[in-house]
């Protein structure tokens, strides 16, 4: 007989202790847990993190920011945050539906490790680090190293993701998010792009661009970022966004949502829109 228990500790220490006892399945917001059948036949004992208040919320952390693992998507878009968060906030509003945004958590989105996770591109542009706790141990891993493949993450037995840390945001930078889907709501992205752009004295001083659903794990686009840096904001309209070299890290596939070739071209267009819009946002200051 399987152990049918469920634990809902209200302290992280208790959760970490429980994980020592054997293999438990971690339940966060439930939006992937239940559809994946993890509460169904053959389920493991469940460790529910929803009662641990310390895991939820967004706060300043030194020069940077800390986003608790159990922070809901609606917590993020409802908060008043600097313009650099605008991409993450826009993505938060595009995750599924209001119901999904009220349940789904930031860490759950990351740990589910879907190529189409809407949270990944904006968090990559914010250079998030994943804070991981185990009993008596803490470690931090850059987000791009934490998600290692489709449904694969660098989380060891006994560990829980507790937060995302964002380093100091580039002064005046503005975030954007462009989602491409076949309908308005409740849609898994065909592809999506997030950009974080800073402009100093009329020229792009910060350029971070990340793409989701065009490779097994969302990717930054270093060549595009390098090419953008130093470009006059006024010249951006004529910038050659469709240079294939920019998108070399991507490996889009054909699936029911669209062809790989389509994704490649759509991504270039989404990059153009996100970056132009972010750049215009910089001008608003």
């Amino acid at each position, binding site marked *: 007989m399987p152990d*049918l*228990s*469920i*634990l*809902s*500790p*209200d302290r992280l220490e*208790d959760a970490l*202790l*429980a994980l020592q006892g054997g293999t438990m399945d971690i*339940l966060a*917001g*439930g*939006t992937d*847990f*239940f*559809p994946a059948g*993890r*509460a*169904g*036949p*053959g*389920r493991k*004992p*469940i460790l*529910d993190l*929803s*009662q641990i208040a310390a895991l939820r919320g967004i706060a300043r952390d030194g020069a940077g920011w800390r986003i608790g693992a159990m922070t809901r998507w*609606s917590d993020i878009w409802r908060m008043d945050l600097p313009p650099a968060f605008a991409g993450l906030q826009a993505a938060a*509003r595009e995750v*599924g*539906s*209001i*119901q*999904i945004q*009220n*349940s789904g958590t930031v860490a759950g989105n990351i740990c589910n490790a879907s190529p189409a996770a809407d949270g990944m591109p904006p968090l990559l542009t914010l250079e998030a680090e994943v804070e991981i706790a185990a009993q008596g141990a803490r470690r931090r891993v850059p987000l791009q190293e934490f998600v290692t493949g489709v449904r694969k993450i660098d989380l060891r037995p006994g560990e829980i993701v507790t937060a995302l840390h964002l380093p100091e945001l580039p002064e005046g930078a503005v975030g954007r998010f462009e989602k*491409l889907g*076949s*309908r*308005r*709501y*409740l*849609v*898994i992205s*065909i592809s999506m792009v997030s950009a974080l752009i800073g402009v100093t004295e009329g020229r792009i001083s910060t350029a971070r661009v990340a793409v989701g659903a065009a490779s097994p794990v969302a990717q930054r686009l270093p060549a595009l970022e390098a090419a953008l840096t130093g470009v006059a904001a006024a010249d951006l309209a004529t910038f050659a966004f469709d240079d294939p070299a920019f998108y070399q890290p991507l490996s889009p596939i054909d699936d*029911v*949502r*669209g*062809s790989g*070739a*389509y994704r490649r*071209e*759509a991504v270039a*267009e*989404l990059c153009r829109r996100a970056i132009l819009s972010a750049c215009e946002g910089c001008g608003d200051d």
Partner: protein
Amino acid sequence: MTDPISKVKLGFTLNGAAVEIAPEAGERLSQSLRERLGRRDVKIGCDAGDCGACSVLIEGENHCACLVAAHQVQGLRVETLAGLVEREPITQGLMERFQDHGAAQCGICTPGMMVSATALLREEPAPSDTQIEDALGGVLCRCTGYRKIIDAVAGRAPRLDGRAEVGGAIRRLDGLAKVRGEERFGDDVAPQGTLELVVIRSPHARAGFEFGDLEAWAAATPGVVTVLTAADIPGENCFGVIPPFADQPVFAEGEARFRGEAVAAVVLTPEARRDFAQGDFPVTWQERPAVMGVAEAREEGAPQLHEGRAGNLMITGFVARGDAEAALGRAEVVVEGRFESGFVEHAYIEPEAGFAQMAGDKVEIHACTQAPVMDLEALEIILGMDRSRIRIVPTGVGGGFGSKLDISVQPFLALAALKTGQPVRIAYSRTESMQSTTKRHPSQIHLRIGADGEGRLCGFAFDGDFNTGAYASWGPTVANRVPVHASGPYQLGDYRAEARGIHTHCPPSGAFRGFGVPQAAIAQESLFDELAGKLGLDPLEFRIQNALRDGVPTVCGQVFGQGVGIGACLEALRPAWAELRAEAEAFNLDQAGPLRRGVGVAAGWYGCGNTSLPNPSTIRAGLRPDGQVVLHQGAMDIGQGANTVISQVFASALGLAADRLVLIGADTDVTPDAGKTSASRQTFVSGNAAKLCGAALRGEILRAMNAGEGAVLRFEAGAVLAEENGRQQRLDLAALPMDDLGYVMRAEETYDPPTKPLDENGQGEPYAQFGYAAHLAMVEVDTRLGTVRARKFVAAHDVGRAINPMLVEGQIEGGIAQGLGMALMEEYLPGRTENLHDYLIPTIGDIPPVQSLIIEVPDAHGPYGAKGLGEHVLIPTAPAILNAIAHATGVRMRSVPVTPSKLAAALKGDKNG
């Protein structure tokens, strides 16, 4: 360290009251609410957060209860619709407005919509349409097209007029239960704790299979009561909606012919059900080569699905008139195209569900259905039992659109109740529903159409292959309907159309709003635009010039001397056509960016009732001694409004307001057969029966009082009053003898539409009436991303007489939403899009405003002139959208759905996109 709290009591506040339960670990809150706390107003449509039907408020926030573990609400406040309608003034206001607008059709999504709207209005009392869409975007509706829901939430003025008779815009008579969350659908009737059924289904498109020792397995598995296989079927292991083509087993024997086909079923306790995995069942599969497309299926040496259907050809439908080839030869201009479409899933939000129990030696099946008497007839054969021992009690139906015409859960439930003697229930999972029930036929159509130098049609040759899947279902109807309708509502003297139904190892294709006609209309209406373009004619005027008229024969040689309303529909679109085309062209001239707008037009027609076959409806009514008039309304209301429309017709004939009637539904023990809810026949056929019945009851009352035809009747407690020429008479009902049904007077009338058989060339009188439709669609195309957004629809429908204009609009808006889905996003791929996040249907943000133009060209056969509407609403939508895309971009798409990926490729000139 916290103790495990499994099986420990969990406390929270439900709808204002403290409750305690002891759920299983990981139990979904939706399950706890429904099965432990009796809160069946929380609906389950997908168990994956894809549909929002189970929306509840937790601490005032909107959540899908299927994605919340019951243990997560310890100590929190949970509100469901049933609680909100009792306590929350905002929800009480919504209750009224949803009824005023007809915002609840079938009602299965209504709890989710109203709960979501309550959360919004608590925060934002005067929301914009965008805020409404954002707040309700997580709830799918398949019936309404969403616009009336937006109107209700926004609090716009309704169009009600309060006239509870023919022509009056009144609330649905059955609407209150829907907005209170009290409507009982297929999964809402079984008592808590009832035994459950799990169906064992083939994981392969084609597979042999062998069972292990089922008896030993059942005996050894805790909670398993019994196993059902083909060996348990007392009658014939065969069903089919069209008896000569019946070919589908309840349980496959020897070989499964599609992925999702049933081979066995397990009856087990609810506890055992929760822990049961398909892999636990002792069966081994041998996957075999399958044919999935019609071309493969037609190849020599292809596996043959059924004996006697060589080449996997099930049937060919054929209509010919004049000489199509000769006409095409002499035509000034000929256009030609190949068109294709895929499987479309009905995607009603209520998966098939029901329960069965024994009542003495009678088996009662309570389930959602569109055709209770057909269910009964199928079970007579399967169970080998006399029909007097079978009772079908339809539950509320959470959407049907054609698929709930076929039996699904019914035989499993009946067999299980008979074998165990105990009540048994089942609700299909979303994936099971999508895998195993019928779909719209995929089509491959080749069409050539000619026109002469004056723009008159000159020759039409249609050839279509329809993938009918593993079993016949309604495939023969599709093959026969398509050639009769493929011309569209136009004048064509030289015509040839052939449609073939071809078997493959796919799920059975069956009935889906339009029976193949929407697929054919895409080809015909697209090529009409090309013809008009080649001739330099305005597309709308070209259609008006060629529109069918009174006195002109159809392609079947049928001549209607009256009632042909397509000309009126098309002409009604002229002002909007001119305005929107100009608006789109001006928009495009102004655009530096990638957006382009276009406006397209398309028309359609649809014959109401069965094709050249009898399809009678019977309606019964009785007068009770207390003065109440009872209407046995057997026309299944699956959301479209039959309960209200049939009542309005009956009421006008009798002379009593429709909202004073007592309605009894389609229970086969107490209500006569009003036929299936299909073929757009209920308003027309059952409506006529209701009119005859109302008139007959009125006649009986007048005779009893010796009153004249013109008397005005008043029904009071225990009496009927008749007033005529200032003279009043009273009939005391208590003094009259009661019949076996408790009535002092009773009437029962039947109507069967007059048709004539089709000859070998499809010539004859297939239908007593057609209804007509024409749509305009304005779209906006993002030419860089290939995305299409509909901006506006104008829809003209000739309904003969609008029995209830509000319900007419509801049908139009809902049909347009389904047509848009078919055009832009919907494609069922076995094994790949078997859920509602990979199979996409339109959300509230995808449907633009719809302007309905109700045209009333009365039909001599229709009750008060009324024509059918249910299927007409879908037919012109997809081609209007395709024509609008072509107007916007110059690119003609011939394969639906036009996904962004496909359109972007076509915009680049890549035909293989």
